[in-house]
């Protein structure tokens, strides 16, 4: 009796997310040690909104990766939504109307990829490699060289909107989304379908899981998150430019993988992604504070990736054994 009790407590704690949680703590400690200017909650909170847009996309991306697909066009889609919204506003549409259109556009961009992948059965890596160029290119055509700014007061500065006077709104949104999406993944039928599609697609089909439909929904969800992120980015910066966010897809993939989601699908957690997001933000903040050379920063992130994945792997095996 006692043994099983101990085992189940151990099992609850020794989850794969533990490794990234450990790193979360380590990164806080490391940050403090590196720089006396680090442990300023207001400062940390003020740097988070910059990455929160990517973080929100990373949450939806986790779902997609669990289902065994990938989307490289995420950062480009974010920029396209931002630019299209800006252009629409500039041509006279009211911001209230632009917002839902921006969200809709995100959805469309995600579904575009989803439809191509599910209909043609071409690997999502290739399709989204193409859409990655295409979306950014379209943003470039639409908005041209310059940038568009001059948005209404109430829209701009979402990162300065503070809950309880302390927490920037983007973080609140991020936390809420994490909790909601984790619940959906772990507790609902849909969540289980997603995992099934990723781990054993053939079996899923036999259990009446419409694999294509699930994937389509996930691409759409990802698109929606790109829409939200695009609008958030527009609000935070107060301007739109086609060259914003280049390389963001790599950051997002790092966040998802770091959080313990398997690249081959079938396994993953939103909490892990959220913790990974926090770790990356904390690390980047502390490294930036000491003006660590970019190359050294890469080294740190690279080493951390490997160590975390070793730990996560061991924890996964432990979970599988019991």
């Amino acid at each position, binding site marked *: 009796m006692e043994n099983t009790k101990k085992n189940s407590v151990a099992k609850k704690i020794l989850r794969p997310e533990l490794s990234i949680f450990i790193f979360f703590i380590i990164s806080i400690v490391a940050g403090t040690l590196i720089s006396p200017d680090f442990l300023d909650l207001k400062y940390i909170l003020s740097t988070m909104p910059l990455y929160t847009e990517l973080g929100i996309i990373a949450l939806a991306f986790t779902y997609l990766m669990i289902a065994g697909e990938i989307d490289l066009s995420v950062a480009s889609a974010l920029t396209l939504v931002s630019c299209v919204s800006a252009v629409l506003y500039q041509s006279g549409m009211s911001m209230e109307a632009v917002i839902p259109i921006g969200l809709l556009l995100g959805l469309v961009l995600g579904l575009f990829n989803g439809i191509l992948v599910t209909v043609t059965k071409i690997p999502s890596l290739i399709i989204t490699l193409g859409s990655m*160029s295409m979306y950014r290119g379209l943003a470039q055509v639409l908005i041209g060289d310059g940038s568009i700014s001059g948005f209404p007061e109430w829209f701009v500065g979402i990162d300065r909107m503070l809950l309880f006077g302390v927490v920037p709104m983007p973080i609140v949104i991020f936390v809420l989304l994490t909790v909601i999406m984790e619940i959906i993944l772990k507790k609902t039928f849909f969540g289980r379908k997603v995992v099934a599609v990723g781990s054993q697609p053939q079996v899923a089909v036999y259990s009446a899981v419409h694999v294509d439909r699930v994937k389509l929904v996930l691409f759409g969800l990802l698109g929606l998150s790109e829409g939200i992120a695009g609008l958030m980015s527009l609000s935070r910066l107060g301007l739109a430019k086609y060259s914003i966010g280049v390389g963001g897809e790599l950051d997002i993939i790092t966040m998802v993988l770091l959080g313990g989601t398997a690249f081959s699908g079938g396994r993953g957690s939103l909490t892990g992604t959220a913790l990974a997001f926090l770790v990356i933000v904390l690390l980047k903040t502390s490294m930036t504070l000491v003006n660590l050379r970019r*190359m050294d920063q890469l*080294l740190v992130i690279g080493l951390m990736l490997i160590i975390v994945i070793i730990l996560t792997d061991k924890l996964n095996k432990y979970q599988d054994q019991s």
Partner: protein
Amino acid sequence: MKAKEKRLSGMALREVGVVAIILIIYVIGCLIEPRFFSFDVLVNILLFTPVLLLISLGEMMEIISQNLDVSVGSIMGFAATVGGAIFRYDKSFPIIVVFLVTTGIGVVLGLINGLLVTRFKLPSVIVTLGTMNIYRGLIFILMNAKQIDNMYIPQNLIALSQPMKSVIGIPYTVIIAFAAAALVALFLRRFKTGREIYAIGCNREAAELRGINATRISMLVFIIAGGLSGFAAMLFISRVGYVNPVTAGSGMEFTAVAAAVIGGTSMAGGVGTTLGTVLGCLLLGVIYNSISYIGISGYWQDAIYGAIIIIAVIIEKLIKTRLVKGQEA
């Protein structure tokens, strides 16, 4: 006997689709811009391939054996920086020796990848995502690398990429790359180890039951891929004419994977041919070049490039499906 025939035609069909789409794009390009149809243009398209081809071949073998390596760009960058540094130190250093050095560095870095993946049994994607960053960071820590300017690069290295300096009008780098591809094809088809790579890709457990040491083979693939990237570094320097340690090879991993997959390598493993990868590289080369030649304004180029890739792979898939259906009928 019959099964073997069917498989042979199956493989050939995959490539036919890619060949078809390459020709279609080229012909359309020529129709829009008649000057596209010339020997010089074909040479330029070929010049796009050497570095990409070698890296893609390594990537192909990785994917076949159910691994994914995104550090190949950084390996190439690292090797190129070392090669460039040697030339900055002594411009008259024999090129052959530097070739060996860069290849050796690639081998070592590939070895590290292999060790991490096989020893710790870790997913290759994440490990190589980590090493991609680590190697790029190491370039600076070990060498405090600054750009190695054009005037330090020996002329005879650059000459390898020049059509005029070649006996048959096709630059030596292209010939070298294609020769390497032929060797890879030979290795994969005729040598036992080569075939074992496919075996562990198709069904790892079954292969191990047959006595194949999957760990050793995986390790070998990482080493080969690293070595190819290191070798490609010299071809890179030859083409570009200088080395910028930050950008050299950056982003190439995605293009390499795309070339391999377009050429028929399956992400699930166990399937892929050298010819397919070569064609994949050529396809990307044709698309890339045609955009500049047919007069698309700078603003539209990215958008059109992405659209063409998507359209190209869709059409290629359609052709393949039609042909396979025709075969089965």
